[in-house]
């Protein structure tokens, strides 16, 4: 009797069988995989499961508590929505990498020790990189390699941290790292988590890679990498003061870039950074209320951000255009997509009755409760910026604004259904916040719907809208790209290649090559000549001499070795006689 099946196993093993199915049956199978994972998560009881003894260590695949369950639920729900959105895609490779990606995110969620965490961490990096590669354009392949590079670096940091931690403490258990604050292991592991959470200046990989991924792949990518990083930050680094400030800066950083952005999905990608900023800040504050806020915001965020990416993806799929300067006026033929997108837009902007309101306000209030004035003001400012870019700017220039003359149909039905599912949950959480609060890791003593709270939120949003329409001309998207910290490795790589091709190659040819001729090659030839002379005269002479001696002695031996038993017996008898004589005489 198997005690527990890891829900991620359904996805990772199940994904390999996808090519065996065809047509309608394949679609049923695809939806069945994450559904089975969700059921598996729901049926899992709290406690420790799946402990495997390996090379003297206990590897824990199933650490199940309220926190890991919360993330596992939303990861599997998003898996179902994402795969419904992707049902029309004919490329099996995309489905397989998406399912492996979701499965490994579940692996990270349930990992009870650092080794298991590391294994799934790497799995996630590679399967997500595939979702970028599979778009197959030149830009996508390049972006995929950059993605892989950054996340391999993150993995190496994690592994280095784990090994140092292990050698110092002798334990691979993954619990709060706060007792080891200040050590190298602490900072290496924190760095790795911060890279995956896209904390600036390590976050440029996100807006670099996500807009280049496939339409359906990007929907998966928005959910798992950053939010599993938030999960491990909650586990390991709750109360790290650095994170309060990094999170608050992050929230504004994403907003600033979103204002400048022209590519729809890149704009949304910057708003992932901004929203994850709230969660990172909550982790830094570290009180029960703040951690509840981070966890619930991650839950709500996965769904509304997925919805926003699905909306922008649907527009990209139907029009083939991704830039705001080339879009406009398509609400006339895509009204359903527009409405569903706006539900996501209202949710991320924390409009009352939508999911973002009940989760984001918890983090902001936690900052207030802990008397952190500056972070409180920064997060509030960022929420005005969120509404400005995702709730106003993007829909205005994408769906309304100057008519681009593009007339396209609504996207395929499965895409609309997936967006409908996400919209439903966004509104459900907004209207019944208790449904989400009851799943949170700590007991909730917080009401989001107080009159003051609601009115202050509406005031912020309403007057942001006023500011938007007043400064509309200032905000017109421009066909540009914005430099971010990826500049260092994108331009840096060019400088490196130039150095390698021009000065280094020339130096190598003219200076090192010549020097090699005189300093290395000629002396070596001279020495080799001397050695050859020595070899022929001395070494060969010795070897030949030894050979001749052996031949001569074997001639003598041949006489003795007659092959007849009597002769050997006589020699033995003579020998024994000689020994006895020696003993007696001496």
């Amino acid at each position, binding site marked *: 009797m198997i005690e527990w099946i890891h829900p991620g196993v359904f996805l990772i093993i199940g994904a390999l069988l996808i090519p065996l199915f065809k047509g309608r049956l394949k679609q049923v199978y695809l939806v069945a995989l994450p559904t089975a994972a969700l059921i598996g998560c729901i049926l899992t009881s709290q406690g420790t499961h799946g402990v495997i003894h390996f090379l003297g260590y206990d590897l824990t695949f199933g650490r199940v508590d309220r926190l890991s369950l919360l993330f596992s639920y939303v990861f599997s729900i998003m898996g179902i929505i994402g795969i419904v959105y992707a049902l029309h895609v004919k490329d099996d490779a995309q489905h397989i990498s998406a399912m492996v990606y979701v499965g490994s995110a579940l692996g990270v969620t349930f990992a009870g020790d650092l080794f298991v965490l590391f294994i799934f961490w790497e799995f996630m990096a590679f399967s997500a990189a595939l979702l970028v590669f599979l778009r197959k354009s030149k830009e996508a392949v390049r972006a995929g390699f950059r993605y892989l590079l950054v996340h391999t670096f993150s993995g190496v940091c994690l592994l280095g941290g784990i090994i140092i931690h292990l050698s110092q403490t002798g334990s691979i258990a993954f619990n709060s790292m706060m007792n080891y604050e200040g050590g190298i292991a602490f900072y290496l592991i924190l760095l790795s988590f911060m890279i995956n959470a896209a904390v600036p200046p390590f976050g440029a990989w996100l807006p670099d890679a996500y807009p280049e991924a496939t339409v359906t792949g990007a929907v998966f990518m928005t959910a798992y990498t950053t939010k599993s990083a938030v999960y491990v930050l909650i586990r390991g680094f709750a109360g790290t003061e650095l994170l309060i400030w990094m999170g608050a800066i992050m929230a504004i950083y994403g*907003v*600033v*870039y979103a*204002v*400048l952005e022209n590519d729809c999905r890149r704009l949304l990608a910057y708003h992932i950074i901004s929203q994850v900023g709230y969660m990172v800040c909550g982790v830094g504050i570290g009180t029960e209320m703040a951690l509840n806020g981070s966890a619930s915001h991650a839950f709500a965020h996965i769904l509304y951000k997925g919805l926003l990416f699905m909306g922008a993806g649907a527009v990209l799929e139907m029009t083939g255009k991704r830039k705001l300067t080339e879009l406009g006026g398509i*609400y*006339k033929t895509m*009204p359903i997509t*527009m409405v569903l997108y706006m539900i996501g837009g209202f949710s991320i902007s924390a409009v009352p009755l939508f999911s973002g309101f009940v989760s984001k306000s918890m983090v902001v*209030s936690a900052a*207030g*409760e802990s*008397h952190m*004035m500056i972070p*409180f003001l920064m997060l*509030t*400012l960022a929420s*005005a*910026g969120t509404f*400005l870019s995702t709730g106003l700017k993007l829909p205005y220039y994408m769906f*309304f604004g100057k008519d681009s003359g593009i007339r396209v149909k609504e996207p395929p039905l499965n895409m609309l259904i997936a967006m409908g599912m996400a919209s439903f949950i966004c509104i459900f959480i907004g209207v019944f916040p208790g449904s989400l609060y009851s799943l949170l890791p700590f007991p909730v003593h917080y009401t989001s719907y*107080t*009159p*003051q*709270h609601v*009115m*202050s*939120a*509406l*005031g*912020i*949003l*309403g*007057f*942001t*809208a*006023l*500011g*938007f329409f007043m*400064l509309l001309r*200032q*905000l017109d998207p*421009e*066909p*540009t*790209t*914005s*430099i*971010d910290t990826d500049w260092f490795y*994108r*331009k840096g790589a060019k400088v490196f290649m130039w150095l390698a091709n021009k000065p280094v190659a020339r130096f190598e040819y003219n200076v090192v090559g010549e020097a090699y001729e005189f300093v290395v090659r000629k002396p070596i030839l001279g020495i080799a000549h001397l050695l050859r002379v020595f070899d022929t005269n001395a070494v060969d002479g010795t070897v030949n001499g030894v050979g001749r001696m052996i031949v001569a002695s074997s001639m003598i031996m041949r006489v003795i070795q007659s092959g007849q038993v009597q002769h050997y017996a006589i020699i033995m008898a003579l020998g024994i006689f000689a020994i006895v004589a020696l003993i007696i005489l001496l």
Partner: protein
Amino acid sequence: MNIFERILEDPVRFKKVKKIFYISLILMALIEVAIVYVFHLGHGYFWFEGIPAFGSIYGFISCALIIIVSKFLGHHWLMKKEDYYD
């Protein structure tokens, strides 16, 4: 023609929508003041939340600040031609 088109493409209806928007903004600001000063519901965490209609004012300032500062940074530093990395 869908419902959004009927509203947005008709100048008369569009004007009406604009009017509703402005009236609701004023109403919201008034209610925000009233909740704190007339009904004494709820309390903030910081002194500045006692400023009448703090949310509305801060929302407007934030929005303007974000647009102006971001665009300034963009035009003078961050924004490059689209083929910058090619």
